[in-house]
């Protein structure tokens, strides 16, 4: 009995738009290979990343040690491969913790307007510190460990995520379908979880892909100045920190882990840009 035209053409599905986004696919390839290397570290690392070999300190790249050895004669390639595992793990944990706290804090601030001023002024105060300095300060107070590094970075980047989440919630909470849910008798919890969260998620996902990149970079900084996960554990930052005194004689110790960071971060940023374009071309993420 409905005489109406059946439907407006559905928009191109997200995955299709992403597949056609060339720099996204390039970023995905870069980051995907880093993830693959990290997952298969035990299988593909040619040497033990912790095994010292003092007869072959600061060895140049050759057939056995493709990327050379460091001051203790450890294989740089193997350390990078195993280090990628730790660095990605730290980045991922920072992303997860930041996502949860950022979404909850930002969601509450955006949804319950009475909390907004209080919560966001606290977040603003935290954001007033330059990000990496705050992370260094927190990590220095807590002491060097992998867990503390995650904690310091999560505390630093949660306000930035909360701000994005709040902005998204502010938009969604005014949508007529949220009012429709209230009219039906839905409570705050139900509205937040079934309507606001799914519809406000996209800017958050974009933000988190950038946070992932920044966390990996920041972990390297923390390790470099000695407040990250303690040596001899291999992380991108630790390897560079180990090599900095020998940068004249053995530049490969710093060069290759630096390249690994660059590839990882570039990949993640391209993924973030692609997601942003595919999800909403008008959206701009400001991250300082």
């Amino acid at each position: 009995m409905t005489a109406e035209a059946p439907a407006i053409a559905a928009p191109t599905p997200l995955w299709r738009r992403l597949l056609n986004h060339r720099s996204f696919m390039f970023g995905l390839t870069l980051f995907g290979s880093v993830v693959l290397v990290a997952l298969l570290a035990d299988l593909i690392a040619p040497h033990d990343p912790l095994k010292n070999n003092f007869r072959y300190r600061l060895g140049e790249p050759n057939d056995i040690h493709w990327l050379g050895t460091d001051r203790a004669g450890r294989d740089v390639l193997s350390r990078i491969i195993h280090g990628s595992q730790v660095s990605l793990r730290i980045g991922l944990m920072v992303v997860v913790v930041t996502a949860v706290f950022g979404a909850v804090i930002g969601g509450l601030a955006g949804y319950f307007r009475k909390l907004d001023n209080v919560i966001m002024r606290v977040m603003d105060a935290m954001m007033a510190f330059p990000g990496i300095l705050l992370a260094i300060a927190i990590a220095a107070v807590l002491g060097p460990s992998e867990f503390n590094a995650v904690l310091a970075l999560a505390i630093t980047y949660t306000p930035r995520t909360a701000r994005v989440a709040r902005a998204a919630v502010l938009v969604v909470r005014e949508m007529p379908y949220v009012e429709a849910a209230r009219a039906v008798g839905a409570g705050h919890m139900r509205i937040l979880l079934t309507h606001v969260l799914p519809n406000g998620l996209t800017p958050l996902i974009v933000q988190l892909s950038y946070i992932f990149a920044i966390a990996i970079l920041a972990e390297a900084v923390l390790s470099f100045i000695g407040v990250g996960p303690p040596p001899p554990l291999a992380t991108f930052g630790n390897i560079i920190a180990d090599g900095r005194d020998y940068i004249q004689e053995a530049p490969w110790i710093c060069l290759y882990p630096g390249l690994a960071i660059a590839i990882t971060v570039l990949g993640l940023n391209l993924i973030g840009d692609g997601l942003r374009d595919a999800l909403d071309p008008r959206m701009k993420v400001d991250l300082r």
Partner: protein
Amino acid sequence: MSALLQATGLVKHFPAGKPGLFERAPQVVRAVDGVDLSVAPGETLALVGESGCGKSTTGRLILRLIEPDAGTILFQGRDLRREPPARLRELRRDMQIIFQDPFGSLDPRMTVGRIVAEPLVVHGVGTTAERARRVAQLLERVGLAPAHAARHPHEFSGGQRQRIGIARALALDPKLIVCDEPVSALDVSIQAQVLNLMLDLQRERGLGYIFISHNLAVVRYMANRIAVMYLGKIVEEAARDDLFAAPQHPYTKALLSAVPEPGSARAKQRIVLTGDVPSAIDPPSGCRFRTRCPHATETCARLEPALTPVADGRNVACHLVTPPGHA
């Protein structure tokens, strides 16, 4: 009169602009400023008026989607403003709303089935299987196919989405539905289909409608009684035929004179109002309509006319119709 809904003295003042951290809101918009209305079971009361006159706000105040600043709302004899939140939730089963915007009012991430079932889920009605059956029935009743439950809103046209919105409003078998400009976003060719569906449903289930619209042709088709709003107040209220036959308030006359009547031999003299609607932040003294009223006198600036009964079921707020001191 055993009214389904009886609202008295509804007031809503919105703060104008966001108050800063340390200052109080300086001004208020008097969106709704003392509105009385009642709806009987199975009756359609239309709220008409220009945009910004407070008709949509009134609809939302009645459902307590917006919290009124003052007034009482009796629904089936119970005072909605005194009910604790848990009881209010229960009462919401009997009063629903159909929205103007068929695109925004359906969650784009949900399937149609989940949208229509949401009221049932919220109120814990039935098992999953029972709810699915009920959703299928509802979709069929509003002229869609049960198979549409698996689709998403963006796959439907405006008219079909509005049918989905109606199915959702019907899910809990309400007694009163506030219809906030339900067809104004639809193509004219679709409007009649949706309006007829709403009339059929009303006959079938004895629904009371509060029908908010600025389209007088649509209102004439749907309403039993009509209340005309201007700047947050009702200026005239009458049965449909009385109102269209002999409008009494100058504002109603002007509104009606603007309705084109196809095939009408009688040449209408159009009453053209000059000026804009005054700001609801600082409404005119006395009668709010006096700044645009062709008959305004000095009394109108001094005294605010009250909504006064002039005949059976007919109320007008105008000094010309009921001179002050008359009642």
